[in-house]
């Protein structure tokens, strides 16, 4: 591979990672639930594109498989499950949040800085092509974590979890050229089952509490 293509390639991978981060902010700022799911689909597509780019530039073929799985699982199957859940629990209206949108965005900004700070010393270890993505991956993980805390509705907590998973996948693919295929397959399987289980729980919570507002889950405390 010529020097030119590595340089441009690394820029492109950075661009893809940045787009992923951008969709994170969009999800945090979004109040409508179904729009959050759509943005998650968009993020997963960006992720698949970035992964394919890494696969193309490095010639490591199994990353293509992981990218294809990302499209199938995260851009098709999981959004369908989530939309069904949303329909069942009937919460299309705006989201309730523990923090308002501007504060949330500021916190996310701080999380990005934190992520770069944590990964600063280990970034030079990585492959030249993709090493900057590790910081972005950690930032996405942290923002997903924040989403799970900041949002009250069960479904948005699931989206926060899925965003975390996207960050992890970016970390594995971009920073370490992908985990071995068997690992990727297992992770996807767990993710799918996990989302299904969380979906089942949302259904049952709705039926039992007449709400998916997790702030109403308060019977169990000291």
């Amino acid at each position, binding site marked *: 591979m010529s020097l030119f293509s590595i340089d441009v390639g690394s820029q492109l991978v950075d661009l893809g990672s940045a787009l992923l981060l951008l969709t994170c902010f969009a999800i945090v700022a979004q109040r409508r639930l179904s729009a959050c799911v759509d943005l998650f689909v968009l993020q997963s597509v960006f992720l698949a594109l970035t992964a394919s780019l890494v696969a193309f530039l490095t010639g490591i073929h199994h990353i293509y498989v992981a990218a294809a799985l990302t499209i199938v699982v995260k851009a098709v199957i999981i959004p369908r499950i989530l939309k069904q859940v949303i329909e069942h629990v009937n919460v299309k209206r705006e989201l309730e949040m523990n923090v308002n949108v501007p504060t949330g965005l500021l916190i996310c900004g701080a999380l990005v800085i934190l992520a770069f700070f944590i990964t600063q010393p280990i970034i030079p270890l990585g492959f030249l092509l993709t090493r900057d993505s590790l910081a972005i991956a950690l930032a996405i993980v942290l923002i997903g974590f924040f989403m799970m805390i900041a949002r009250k509705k069960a479904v948005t907590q699931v989206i926060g979890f899925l965003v975390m998973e996207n960050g992890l996948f970016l970390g594995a693919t971009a920073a370490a050229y992908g*985990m071995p295929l068997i690992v990727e397959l297992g*992770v996807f399987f767990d993710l799918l089952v996990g989302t299904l289980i969380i979906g089942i729980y949302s259904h049952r919570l709705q039926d*039992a509490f007449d709400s998916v507002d997790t702030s109403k889950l308060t019977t169990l405390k000291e």
Partner: protein
Amino acid sequence: MSSWPLVLLVAAPVIAGLGSLVVQQRRAIEVLQCAQAGAMLAAAALVAGQIIAAGEASVGGFLQVDALSAWLDLIIGFVGSSGTLYAVGYVGEELDRAHVSLKRYSQFFCLFDMYLASMLLAVNLENIAIMWIAIEGSTLSAALLIGFDRSKAALEAGWKYVILSSVGIALALFGTILVYYSSEHILGVSNEALRWSQLYRVAEKLDPVAIKVAFIFALIGYGTKAGVAPMHTWLPDAHAEAPTPVSAMLSANMLTVAVYAILRFKAVTDRSVGPEFAGKLIVGLALLSLAVSAIFILVQRDYKRLFAYSSIEHIGIALLGFGIGGLGVFAGAWHLMNHALAKSTAFYGAGLVFLRHDHKSLDRVTGLLEQMPVAGTAILVAGVALAGLPPFGLFISEVLIVAGSYTIRPEVAYVFLALLALAFATLLYQVLRMVLGEPGEAGTALGRQCRIFTSAAVGINIVALGTIGLRVPPGLETLLASILKIFGVGMEAPR
């Protein structure tokens, strides 16, 4: 060296679980579960025997057992098989009372067995990422088991569990990725870079900062699953609301498996940056867990939650042992095994009380020894063991941890002793109040079959607890010596 015991150990619960789902017939499921309990127990003993004799066993480079894995195999295999017997009695009683349908009955056993299988798989895997997948598998099956009753409280507990554990396990995966990130430069982009044995071998060449960050993520992530404070908030709810056989397995097995995962990361970190770094972090979290649990044990009004907080305490004690190193590693491993036996016994007793009285209020339970001799004995023996009194193993491990921490950092020993005394007094008081005195409410008597199976489970556990309480059997001693070597005790300190 034959590899079939290892395969049998992992395969038995899978086969029994799928079988239970397919046959949907009570007697057949009971036979399957009893067969599974026997097979698991025998296989775990055989695997441990192989390790004691030969040092390690493996199947095709995929499953790999060393002393630490064998130790976990023994714990999960033994408590898993008595737990299976207990579940047959407990859930059978629920079926008799028409609380669950036959379909849900078979679903329960399918999930229960898959849960055991994924934990057994996790501790015997050579690949850290596949171990992560197996542990996540146990999280998912446990999530469905905790919410099995579908009451509001059970759903709430299950939801908390699934959300917190998912976050925790996601952070643990990030730690795993970071290890791979630093090891693939040395071992190449392949499965080799994820194998424990390879990681131990090249640990000194791994980037120290990357390993430190990875360890922090793994500690927080798997620590959430181990119920380490301050990530413990799911634990009391899940233990209190899950069907009791599941509570017993959560406490005895799942927390132990999570500690195992932390230990594996610690072993790599110790070799890479020396034992100080991981040790300090673990000691800090362990003392925090002890403090939190000691306070909440004091104010508990629910007997299942009481035992749940006691689990946080004991996992904290075991971690403290591993954190201080040296003799502490021996004590930590010994503590894990004895805690698993004692805590499952306590929950077996608590479950019988719940079946009889249908409430979990600590104040309304008295005179168990007279009213329900089996449950009373289970809670009394387990309570005395958990409080750390002789002649049980927990006494020995706690004394060793005090001694070990005193020689290294006396202040740790003082804090530990103070917290231990607080938890000891309250737990023992509550347990004695439950078992002694005049029986209160009559409650519903248990069916004959339930009594037989649950008594068997309690009996097996108490016999084991008593047998290993006074002295460490020679075979286990060999295993413990090999575990010490994994953590660099008795060898030259790494780096």
